[in-house]
């Protein structure tokens, strides 16, 4: 079996002023896997994302225990700049990620490559490739500030894709977007997942997450409450609700029907699955 791209081994972390933000977190991400991280606000999800590219602890300081190894590099032994070619981190607010030095979409995507000293011809090739991947062709010369929220977030994804990271980490990438923006961003993530990218995504949109994640990690108060396949975790209805996370509506509905009516239906996690199961139950398949 191939070496996992991400190994988080008994990770414990405290910010300088906030103790135990992460406590004994352990998981692995294989190449081509999509891992979803869910949990209530303050669960430590964003901190975990920042631990994957070394911002925790290099940028924030604090106390850290355990190990985080990404693409064979121990994050404690490498700088954030070195890790930037291995881990691409996309933040919640797309505007926060703009370099401030680029006037066009093209220049914005090129920024990271420029910082890493990639030759000009290679920059051009990679920028065009990344822009195509997120579907922003034709907007290369547009100002990043003129884009819609969804377009800006896709631009943010392009900026990290251009660096060809081994793992893409998205920290609530649709949190600040309207429904159209969310749809645009999820389309890109789904496409990247289908192409075999390794992705770690923090998301509150459980229903969307259920459609493209392989595994899910449930965090609460810095601790792992559940970790397993998307189906295993999302069907832990009681556990999810106990920490303030809503399971997919179709899963919850089926769970309640099973419980209240003594049925034994398979609990779906996507609308598509639910349609299939209920069609059979209702005999309209």
């Amino acid at each position, binding site marked *: 079996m191939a070496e996992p791209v991400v190994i988080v081994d008994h990770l414990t972390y405290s910010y300088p002023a906030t103790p135990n933000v992460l406590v004994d977190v352990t998981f692995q991400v294989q190449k081509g896997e999509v891992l979803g991280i869910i949990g209530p606000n303050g669960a430590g999800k964003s901190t975990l994302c*920042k631990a994957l*590219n070394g*911002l925790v602890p290099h*940028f924030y300081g604090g106390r850290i225990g355990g190990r985080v190894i990404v693409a064979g590099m121990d994050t404690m032994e490498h*700088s*954030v*700049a*070195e890790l*930037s*070619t291995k881990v*691409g*981190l996309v*933040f919640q*607010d797309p505007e*926060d*990620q*703009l*370099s*401030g*030095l*680029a*006037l066009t979409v093209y*220049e914005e995507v*090129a*920024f*990271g*490559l*420029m*910082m*890493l*000293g*990639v*030759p*000009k011809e290679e*920059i051009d090739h990679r920028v065009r490739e990344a822009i195509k991947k997120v579907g922003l062709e034709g907007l290369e010369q547009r100002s990043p500030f003129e884009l819609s929220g969804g377009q800006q977030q896709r631009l943010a994804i392009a*900026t*990290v894709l251009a*660096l060809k990271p081994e793992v893409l980490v998205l920290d609530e990438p649709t949190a600040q977007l309207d429904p159209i923006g969310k749809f645009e961003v999820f389309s890109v993530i789904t496409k990247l997942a289908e192409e075999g990218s390794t992705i770690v995504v923090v998301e509150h949109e459980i229903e969307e997450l259920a459609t493209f994640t392989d595994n899910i990690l449930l965090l609460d108060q810095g601790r792992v409450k559940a970790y397993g396949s998307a189906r295993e975790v999302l069907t832990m209805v009681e556990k999810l609700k106990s920490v303030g996370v809503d399971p997919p509506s179709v899963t919850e509905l089926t769970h309640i029907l099973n419980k209240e009516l003594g049925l034994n239906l398979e609990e779906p996690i996507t609308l598509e699955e639910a349609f299939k199961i209920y069609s059979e139950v209702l005999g309209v398949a």
Partner: protein
Amino acid sequence: MEADTVIQRLDGRAKFIYFLWTSFLAYIFYDYILNIIFIAVTLALAAYAKVFKPIALTLAIIILPWIAIATPILSLPLGFPGNETVIYMIKLAGYEIPIYLEGLGYGITWPLRIAVTISSAMLFYLTTNQARLVAAMVKSRVPFRAIYMVIATLQLIPLLVDEANTIYQAQVSRGLRTDVGVVKKIYYYIALVIPLTLSALNKVQIRAIALESRGFSAPVKKTFLYEAEFRARDYVFFLIMALATAFLAYVYVNFGYSPLAHIKYPKGIWG
């Protein structure tokens, strides 16, 4: 930077040198006529480059009130320590009050000097592609961190203005009164400082994290998309500045500083 005129296409360094050149001459020579010429030329260039409005608006907000308030005060007998040369007498409530040349000159020339600096600096900033400016500064061997500090500072200003507006609106929505006097209004604006500072610091930290995540500190030689090189138009621009300098030198040597220079006034006041 929407338009694409010859002003936009000039090398950032050429426009920066223009900013230094006009400011230097405006401060060396105590001459309101020279200042007016510089402002007129800069505004003409700004109009051609389609950035006239923000520059004119800034000058109107900063410079005109200054002249309108300071000049009458400085021109009066106790308004300026060097007042000696009476140029006019005005009658007010039966009294004759002298208007002094020195105070009047000082009150007009100083704001105009500032106007020269502001207008040429804005022309430089509003017509220069920042990516090209970075390339130009790298070529001039300015350290990259220093370059970023300059650019980020320029970018922070509109961000802070937006943020201040948002915070102000939030406070108005929570009952902050707007129908108050100037002093109270200033007090309210001071109250914005703490949330604005915290929010700005937060934004700066997030921006720093985002930059760091994209290899900002990578210890490698950076690549730049644009090569900074002076072209024929830049040399023409320099030539015009050189000819203008020679012409000004000729005028000053042969005709004196300005029409004001022909009138007696105390040494040391005019700069």
